[in-house]
């Protein structure tokens, strides 16, 4: 099992907290595991809720027009990398 980087762990905590995933421990999330469908099993409402929480915490908006949304939301690692690049605070 692969360990999360400190920032990945921070994003994992935000994810678990935002989506009330009571049975999931942030440190147990696999960084390359899909967030949606198979894997963590998130759905489109979760994606929106997560996007709003990211906007609040890191100060930037995820945009519907972004062609890379599927890639950005593919895994915890991809999402964390995107946040690290885009964050304002």
């Amino acid at each position, binding site marked *: 099992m692969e360990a999360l980087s400190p920032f990945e762990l921070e994003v994992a905590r935000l994810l678990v907290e935002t989506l009330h995933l009571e049975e999931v421990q942030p440190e147990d999330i696999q960084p390359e595991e899909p967030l949606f469908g198979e894997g963590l099993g998130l*759905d*489109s409402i979760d*994606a929106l*809720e997560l996007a709003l929480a990211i906007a609040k915490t890191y100060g930037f908006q995820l945009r*519907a027009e972004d062609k890379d949304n599927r890639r950005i*939301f593919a895994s915890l690692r991809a999402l964390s990398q995107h946040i690290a690049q885009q964050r304002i605070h």
Partner: protein
Amino acid sequence: MNRDWARLPERGNLTALRLIHWITLHIGRPAGRALLYPITLYFLLTAAPARRGSQLYLRRALDRQPRLRDVFRHIHCFAATILDRVYFLSGRLDRFDVRVFDDQLILDQAASGQGCILLGAHLGSFEALRALGVTVKHFPIKILMNTAHNQGMTRYLSALNPALAAMVIPISGGPDTLLKVQESIAQGFMVGALGDRVVPGEKTVHCQFFGQDTPFPAGPLLLAALTGCPVILFFGLYRGGNRYDAHFERLAERIDLDRRRRQEQLGEWAQRYADRLEHYTRLAPYNWFNFYDYWEEDAR
């Protein structure tokens, strides 16, 4: 809930639809409507799953064993609204007698500039909303639609009125769809969505509906909770001939979900939706356009 609807072709059968629309536009609505009888008969005889779905539903809605003529009437009602789409989508409402109930609600909402969710169902004609909103009142409307489900039909209907097509937010199954909806609501758009079909993989909430425990999609209500916008119900009932009744009704000024009681509160809102849906469905039982085993009765 039965997810068969995604696999059932919307058997509107594009060629037949084009033909009947052509006849309607060039010869007239009476000629188009005359063709509805053989077309209905054809579907009644050939579309066994739809026929079965209709029978199972009608038994509940009519509180008796439906006869074949009831199923015929059900399919005919559906076909009639499909025919009228050609007018609604091209904005020709003049020949229709559309009664609008509580339009003040929607006028006030539009005047406020605040976005909202217009929540409907596969009951009657949702197209009537597009037509009312765009060609008559110029409301800022967008419609959430499962376009992948029937691409040929979508392209064809889009061609009828490109301005109306531009209002569609396609359901992609990816993260973009709801981001788009959220952005639209923030910009003051009224976003239309249908709340009676469960999408595989999405959250559901159970309600009592026609005396049966029934899963409904939680998405529209969660969306309202996340965006803090009002939810207004819309049902466009077909009443026969050239008559449509458009009903607007406020479901929620806003939906606040308490963290600890989230599921319970969500259930209460969903039950209100289910109750109103059942009310309007009973008002116009042949307007129910879910032609599949909605309560999974055959699977039990």
